[in-house]
């Protein structure tokens, strides 16, 4: 198939960017979206032009490195997948596709479609862990955990930190990401010990990074490639309230 691509090009965070049009021929429906981008870049390099910079790594939907807003949707039109798992069979011959970076105040553009998401690392550093040192762990079976709780903790823990939640939110809120980690650890006895301190610290860092608040539109969960539930945000808010009333 033949496609018209409109792609955001931007030198760096200081320079103004713009949409640039490209045509790609010979796109096979079996290609992944990023393989289609490879083909485009290959053509650009052969013509002596600079390829489009985009983040990607595992190309199997788990590392969370790929991003891109495709036709207005983070990770494109398909539900529950990342951009790297999107295949060209989701598009038709002659389509125009608009490709932009994940936009948010907390994510400055590095180049073209690459943004700096290190704010997410700093939020985890603020408290997204259990304070246990190497070597001081009790036997793995010492604390039984209900299967349902373990499964729910797992569901929250499947977040890949890609930031589609922020990109989809009109407030550029990071609350789905932040709450997924908080809920995962709060559901487990070993994480619950520090829940209150954790929620305060992580929310404070989230605010400092310039992410907005949640107004319950649910776009984050709808666009999340791992379909992380909004219930996590509710849980985080409850914990936050509790920790405000009684911090210890």
């Amino acid at each position, binding site marked *: 198939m033949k496609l018209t691509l409109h792609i955001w090009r931007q030198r760096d965070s200081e320079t103004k960017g713009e949409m640039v049009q490209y045509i790609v021929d010979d796109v*096979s429906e*079996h*290609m992944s979206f*990023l*393989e289609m981008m*490879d*083909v485009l870049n*290959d053509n650009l*390099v*052969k013509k*002596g*032009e*600079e*390829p489009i*910079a985009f*983040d990607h*790594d*595992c*190309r*199997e*939907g*788990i*590392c*969370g*490195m790929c991003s891109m807003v495709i036709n207005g949707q983070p990770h494109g039109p398909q539900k*529950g*997948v990342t951009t790297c*798992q999107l*295949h060209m069979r989701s598009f038709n011959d002659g389509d125009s596709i608009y490709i932009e970076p994940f936009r948010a105040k907390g994510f400055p553009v590095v*180049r073209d479609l*690459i943004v*700096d*998401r*290190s704010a*997410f*690392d700093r939020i*985890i*550093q603020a*408290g997204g*862990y*259990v304070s*246990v040192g*190497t*070597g001081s762990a*009790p036997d*793995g*079976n010492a*604390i039984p*955990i209900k299967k349902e709780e*373990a*499964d729910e*903790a*797992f569901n929250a*823990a*499947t977040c890949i*930190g890609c930031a589609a939640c922020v990109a989809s939110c009109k407030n550029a809120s990071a609350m789905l990401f932040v709450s997924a980690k908080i809920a*995962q*650890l709060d559901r*487990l006895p*070993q994480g619950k010990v520090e829940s209150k301190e954790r929620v305060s610290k992580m929310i404070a860092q989230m605010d400092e990074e310039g992410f907005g608040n949640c107004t319950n539109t649910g776009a984050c969960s709808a666009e999340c490639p791992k379909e992380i539930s909004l219930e996590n945000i509710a849980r985080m808010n409850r914990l936050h309230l509790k920790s405000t009333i009684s911090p210890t």
Partner: protein
Amino acid sequence: MADLISNVPDGPLADKWTKHKNTIRLVNPANKRNIDIIVIGSGLAGASAAASLAELGYNIKCFFFQDSPRRAHSIAAQGGINAAKNYQNDGDSIYRLFYDTIKGGDYRSREANVYRLAEVSANIIDQCVAQGVPFAREYGGTLANRSFGGVQVSRTFYARGQTGQQLLLGAYSALSRQVAVGKVKMYNRHELLDIVKIDGKARGVVVRNNATGEIASHGAHAVLLCNGGYGNVFFLSTNAMGSNATASWRAHKRGAFFANPSFTQIHPTCIPVSGDYQSKLTLMSESLRNDGRIWVPLHKEDSIAIREGRLKPTELSEERRDYYLERRYPAFGNLVPRDVASRAAKERCDAGFGVNKTGQAVFLDFASAIERYGEEQANIKGISIKDREAVMQMGREVVSAKYGNLFQMYEQITADNPYETPMKIFPAVHYTMGGLWVDYNLMTTVPGLFALGEANFSDHGANRLGASALMQGLADGYFVIPYTIGEYLADDIRTGPISTDHDAFKAAEIEARGHLSSLINIKGSVPVDDFHRKLGKFIWEYCGMARNEKGLKYAIKEVRSLRAEFYEDVRVPGKLDELNTELEKASRVSDFLELGELMCNDALNRNESCGGHFRDEYQTPEGEALRNDKDYTFVSAWEYTGQPEKPKHHKEELVFDNVELKTRSYK
């Protein structure tokens, strides 16, 4: 004659590690604060090492090429992690895990290292549970296990099909905690360009910030390479796009010997190649072989009909199917180790029984598992098993709970529904058992330079068993290096900070910059990926699942000329001092082009078949690998001599005091 000393402690196998820990030198806490360590890579080995060493008090700098440490490719590991917990009461023990791993590696790994790995395996599970890793659990609240290829006990812990992700996020959280207290400094989007040696010791690194193009030096008292494997030599592999061998190869050029480079693991269950544009291959977890049955048609005409779309696999009757693993290996069936399963698939496809358009695929079929689980559920729920629709529906639900995300991933890529029609799979490059040679303390042949996880060679021999890679990465990082590095650093307590003003840093920076500039200045006509693809094809064809003398010699010749062509005609647009993705690729491919040749040389040198290294010339009449213990019970370690064409061969004799070398049989 063997000339490499492994520094394995004396004494009985089961006591070596304890004895070593008791006698190893320690660095006191006050002195640890004055010692700097550089960690390259933030995967399971890198993150666990950086976090654990920082907890001890050392100052850590961690460099990685992704935008966040949580994205290292350990994240993609699906199936699980082994540990000799014997929670299932099925006869497991440290010795048995050790024995399975040694046997699985076809007796080409180092006994003492493997025993230590099995010994610390149980601690890893405890550590991860304490961090909040949500492993699968039973209804009673205890940890669940499953079995994995090549063994007969259930010792694999898992988190659905995303075990690597959960373990890495655990290590990442431990690392984040140390970043917060200022003990670890993180350098994202940074790539190692060189190891800097002063007075023969590794004293730092030269790195490039890929986001800005800036090249800088960092000094330290020791450098840990945790940069993973080199499977991307093949271009198509299950590795991430950015996975590369540059840190290992540049270390090799500075004196670190490269061990068993030809020992690569071809994983049997991957989604087959669909076209020339393909950028990577996707693994379907080995755990699928617990329930999936592998087959091809018994008659060639049926294979042809399936290939041409005239016949559906579900229409083919049982008598016309060949469950070739169950036929050839009745004892282990579909659970034979990876090397055996891969070769058997290749054998059937080479013989013309392949089932996709290219003839390079076999079926992995869940129909009988769905039926079996469905009937089980029907019995539990008191529903008549004659209600086939209900039975199949319940069966699909059980299979979905076990492998749902994998089935979804498969459908996403192929547009086929594996609940309705068998998956098509084919072997693909997955893991590299070879790597930098290390002694018992995980130190390379360069003093002060260590290699952990997939980057070293020591634990998996010629074939790695499933669910062992995660175990090894975390064992090295959490429980081995925090002890063994003390032995080396105890001499450095009076050294003081390593200044990057030293001439060695300046010289290395100039050299690194020169290499990158020269790549840009070639201004040829061919994109980097074209060279990488060609290299991959040669290595896959001649140094892949089966190798022979003639093919290897041919490949060496072709790789050399491809390398020459690369330096004449590669096109790298853009500049050195800015973000330049083509330059990053070109730099990595320049190393793959040299490493590829060494892999072929290594395979050519080893006149036997063992594990993943199968030489056509050395096989039994039944087509099984024929080892030569008399002449090849050693590790090949290659020294860089200044020219990639002339590597120097060294040996470490492997001594087996505790296991008898047997022909590996899974029949």
